[in-house]
């Protein structure tokens, strides 16, 4: 028998494949992680503060305390993801050493480098990165991202930006499919992405990695809408733990995401959940406070 290989693209992208159709929930401690696992989350995302609190409190947002991440890993047996700042390759090294299952190089935290993202090929642990459009997604994949999530506008409870970004990405993929072979060279230039990757997307009609959506999902119907728009799964950040009844809302979002075309199930899942998180309309956010504009 031949030797075995860890950290290959197939292995890294493969875990994201196994999360498809599911909900990944932001958690800040072991207690929240327990609620998420019990509710049927396919993975949890460990971070210092949920985006709504980062927004409210301001200041620099960083990787979580390793103690908290280890407590979360000890509490649950579903995959544990954790956020590192954009370009902060040492936070990523730390998270890899802790044994997290996925690293999110995330615009929700304060960027550590306004020029470069992390060279994600250097790691055995896979990375997920945010994107607002196809070019950004393909640049992250070029740097080694094994999963993409559309960014939306985290911490708002306003789903409109999530809608815009997933529609933009799928729309740009559809446009590539309609181009002739000789037009793909210019398309690659316009997307600022490598030609080989652009050609692959044009041929297959999809990203070479799993595409989740994030940023503003607060209700079962929001989650189901993202799925109907073509997302492979959903990240829910502040939407669960900033709501009136996190247990019930987490379960309801899981159910609606799984049965996303069944309006009767979504209606049933939407009943009696108590208050949704208090929202902020993205239009009311001054541009410097828009997290989606971090990363390029």
């Amino acid at each position, binding site marked *: 028998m031949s030797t075995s290989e860890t950290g290959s693209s197939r292995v890294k992208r493969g875990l994201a494949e196994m999360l498809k159709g599911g909900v990944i929930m932001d958690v800040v401690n072991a207690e929240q992680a327990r609620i998420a696992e019990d509710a049927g989350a396919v993975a949890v995302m460990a971070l210092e503060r949920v985006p709504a609190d980062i927004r409210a409190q301001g200041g620099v947002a960083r990787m979580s305390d390793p103690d908290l991440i280890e407590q979360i890993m000890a509490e649950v047996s579903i995959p544990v993801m954790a956020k590192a700042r954009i370009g902060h390759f040492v936070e990523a090294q730390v998270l890899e050493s802790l044994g997290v299952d996925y690293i999110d190089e995330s615009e929700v935290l304060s960027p550590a480098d306004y020029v470069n993202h992390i060279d994600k090929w250097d790691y055995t*642990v896979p990375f997920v990165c945010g994107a607002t459009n196809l070019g950004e997604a393909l640049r992250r994949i070029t740097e080694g991202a094994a999963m993409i999530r559309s960014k939306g506008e985290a911490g708002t409870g306003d789903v409109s930006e999530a809608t815009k970004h997933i529609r933009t990405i799928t729309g740009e993929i559809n446009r590539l499919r309609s181009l002739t072979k000789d037009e793909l060279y210019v398309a690659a230039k316009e997307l600022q992405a490598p030609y080989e990757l652009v050609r692959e997307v044009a041929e297959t009609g999809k990203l070479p990695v799993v595409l989740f959506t994030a940023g503003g999902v607060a209700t079962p119907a929001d989650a189901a809408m993202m799925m109907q728009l073509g997302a492979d799964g959903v990240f829910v950040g502040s939407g669960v733990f900033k709501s009136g009844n996190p247990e019930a809302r987490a379960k309801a979002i899981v159910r609606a995401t799984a049965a996303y075309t069944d309006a009767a199930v979504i209606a049933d899942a939407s009943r009696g959940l108590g208050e949704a998180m208090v929202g902020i309309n993205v239009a009311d956010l001054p541009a410097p406070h828009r997290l989606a504009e971090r990363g390029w």
Partner: protein
Amino acid sequence: MREHVASLRELGADVREVRSVADLEQVAGLVIPGGESSVIDKLSRIFGVRDAIRERIAAGMPVYGTCAGLILLADELVDGIDGQQTFGGFDATVRRNAFGTQSDSFETDLAIPALGEHPVHAVFIRAPVVERVGPDVEVLARLDDGRIVAIAQGALLGTSFHPEVSGEQRFHERFLQTVRATS
């Protein structure tokens, strides 16, 4: 799941997704894909398909489970989450997440004589292993260290790994042969 559908269609099968009891009544065999086994268990109960699947397994429906699917087919589960159940079927004990975290996930070649001379390229992603098998369970593959990673019993087939991710079709062929022989 997409890769399973593609593999089975390439082999000439009529494939559909099973999300409800009505869907289940339409199929002669079932593939339970990878995923998070604890979530598949929960959803199967929420959507009311668990009992129907158990009845079909008991009645001899061919089922192929990969990774989480293998966990769900085991009579006994080790290291599940609190309250996690399986459909059962295999007289076997399966350990969930037996290899550690994602950084321990790997791909390797496995010699599986039952499928022919050519080795199987197997992708293990936070994979389970089979820790105990009953007398009626056939062991199809082991890792170098002896741990069991592929088994068969009656109309059931289970692998810890994902042949569909690497384009390996011989397990799907074997599953379809069982479906054709029993329907």
